[in-house]
């Protein structure tokens, strides 16, 4: 082992930390929990008052299969829902589109029209659960469908709680599931923010996501810096629309990765809260403390899991989950051991949920707020993460902001470089990964994995065609024309999209209509 030790992000770690390493002014840099700058957490008593929400991401097959999984998870004690959509839904294609061939229901649930959304939430009272939806490019359409389901259940929009991921900037930066070019995509997001602020006040309009940036290969520092830079870009876009910062900022939330480098992750969450609150107050002039508070969801790192000896992933996930909790997360998804092989089996997802329950009820980590505060190492590392992020903000500003950085490939290059560097370290055994480049077992027993029935694709294709055959086509045509006109003008797109989904226009039809105005996007790939 090399004498120099580094975090996963390449920050040096000394053998011993002492008081002089941790330069913190308590009132300025930490403050009380639940008070500015929120380094220690956003609530005064954190998990003593309310545990984090255990929210397992789920979705596969048709709405029927996923609805069954939702009911199963709620029976097992899960406290919120999180919906995974399939690739065609994420990319704005109907299940019978040529682009969807072979992809329907494989990585998430297939949703083509309001009919699917009704089935997806059948028997689930939308006034009582909170639902997170991982949907980005077409978020405005799926949000409209969700609100239409609430209407049909007789639930007032003011009671509806949940989160849209809707973070398009990180799509261009990392996850690469976009539909329209960046500028109209930003407009759709601001349309949703404006609408939700008025009509759906408990809805979190954007979950600004570092998770995918990290999974694409970034370091923890890059995840922190790029995610916050995206957050600031949304704040600036909202303010440019003329919205009061305090009218929408309290509904912005975040989503971070919990990777395997335990202390670095904890420092990352603490630094994130401090940076956000300082900027929101000092730079953007927010006055409502809720605008200063960074609330976030955490998911353990899929990219830290190994296909080799998959049961060992349970242990990795448990450490990562603990980092998320010690970092003060508001909700948590723990990955299942088999997610590197397929979507999780019921057994695997149950163990993942139990991992959180053990953490919450047996380990005692939830009993006191920010228990690592005052650790010389943690405070020093929190400071260093903050300083490294500030350095990135300077570089992004020099480039002309986030959109300019995307266009010139800055983020994509930084991430690709970090991913390659990491892979070389693993290949050279400078980083040991149990089961992959060390402690290898030559003859492993495979574990059972979930298989998606290929016949579901045909079922879904027939279902969307049946919806098209049964609906009032003239009403659909009128609604789509209204969407087109709104897209071409600067009126808010939410109301006409709501009308279109109520008339059972499909997602693909609405996307195609908007594409005639907005065009499409292709990145210059760098590697």
């Amino acid at each position, binding site marked *: 082992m090399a004498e120099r030790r580094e975090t996963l992000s390449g920050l040096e770690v000394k053998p011993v930390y002492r008081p002089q390493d941790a330069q913190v002014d308590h009132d300025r840099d930490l403050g009380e929990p639940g008070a500015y700058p929120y380094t220690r957490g956003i609530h005064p008593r954190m998990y003593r008052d309310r545990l984090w929400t255990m929210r397992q991401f789920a979705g596969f097959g048709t709405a029927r299969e996923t609805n069954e999984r939702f009911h199963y998870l709620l029976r097992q004690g899960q406290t919120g829902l999180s919906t995974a959509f399939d690739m065609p839904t994420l990319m704005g*294609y109907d299940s019978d589109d040529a*682009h969807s061939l072979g*992809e329907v229901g494989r*990585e998430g649930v297939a949703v083509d029209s309001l009919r699917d959304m009704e089935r997806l939430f059948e028997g689930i009272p939308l006034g009582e659960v909170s639902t997170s939806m991982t949907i980005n490019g077409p978020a405005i359409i799926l949000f409209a469908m969700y609100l239409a389901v609430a209407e049909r259940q007789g639930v007032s929009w003011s009671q509806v709680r949940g989160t849209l991921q809707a973070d398009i900037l990180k799509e261009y930066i990392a996850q690469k*599931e976009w539909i329209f070019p960046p500028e109209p995509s930003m407009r759709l997001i601001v349309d949703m923010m404006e609408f939700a602020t008025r009509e759906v006040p408990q809805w979190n309009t954007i979950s600004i996501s570092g998770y995918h940036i990290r999974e694409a290969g970034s370091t923890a520092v890059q995840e922190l810096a790029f995610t916050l830079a995206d957050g600031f870009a949304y704040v600036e876009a909202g303010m440019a629309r003329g919205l009061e910062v305090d009218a929408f900022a309290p509904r912005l939330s975040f989503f971070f990765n919990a990777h395997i480098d335990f202390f670095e992750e904890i420092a990352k969450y603490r630094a994130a809260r401090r940076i956000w609150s300082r900027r929101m107050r000092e730079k953007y002039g927010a006055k409502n403390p809720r605008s200063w508070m960074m609330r976030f969801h955490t998911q353990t790192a899929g*990219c830290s899991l190994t296909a080799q000896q998959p049961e060992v992933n349970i242990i990795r996930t448990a450490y990562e989950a603990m980092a998320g909790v010690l970092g003060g997360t508001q909700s948590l998804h723990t990955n299942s051991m088999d997610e590197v092989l*397929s979507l999780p089996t019921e057994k695997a997802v149950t163990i993942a949920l139990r991992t959180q329950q053990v953490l919450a009820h047996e380990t005692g980590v939830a009993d006191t707020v920010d228990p690592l505060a005052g650790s010389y190492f943690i405070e020093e590392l929190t400071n260093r993460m903050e300083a490294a992020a500030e350095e990135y903000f300077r570089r992004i500003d020099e480039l002309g902001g986030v959109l300019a950085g995307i266009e010139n490939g800055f983020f994509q290059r930084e991430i690709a470089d970090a991913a390659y560097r990491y*892979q070389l370290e693993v*290949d050279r055994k400078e980083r040991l990964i149990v089961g992959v480049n060390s402690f290898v077992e030559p003859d492993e027993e495979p574990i059972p994995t979930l298989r998606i029935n290929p016949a579901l694709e045909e079922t879904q294709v027939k279902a969307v065609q049946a919806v098209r055959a049964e609906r009032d086509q003239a009403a659909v045509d009128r609604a789509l024309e209204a969407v087109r006109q709104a897209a071409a003008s600067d009126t808010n797109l939410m109301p006409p999209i709501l009308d279109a989904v109520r008339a059972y226009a499909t997602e693909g039809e609405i996307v195609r209509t908007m594409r005639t105005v907005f065009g499409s996007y292709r990145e210059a790939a760098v*590697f």
Partner: protein
Amino acid sequence: MTETSDAEATRPIRVLVGKPGLDGHDRGAKVVARALRDAGMEVIYTGLHQTPEEIVEAALQEDVDVVGLSILSGAHNTLVPRVLELLRQQGMEDVRVMVGGIVPEEDAAELRRLGVVAVFGPGTETEEIVRFTRSCARGA
């Protein structure tokens, strides 16, 4: 041996790295593309969201020896056979096709039976992919 084939024997191995289908997981594709390039090969990366038709067209235009397909969406059983079929239609049976991504072993066996020369799963060392690419392209 003619002059042409001499020149061909010494030209760098040309590899097309393709991302068929809709998934945007390009970390692996880019790491592999870069490792092959650093090993002295000429690498063309198609970028994301390509149809099998677009990939085969690019392989033809770029006159590649090897096509590497990266798929993490579970659509490999549909997309890979389609690429193999289109290559055959173009008379490009000599182009070697490798697959990387999340492919269950039983599916991998079927893809190999259909003509894929290798399926690389998570945790594969880049050096192994480089070695394999070199040997299969030379063997072509």
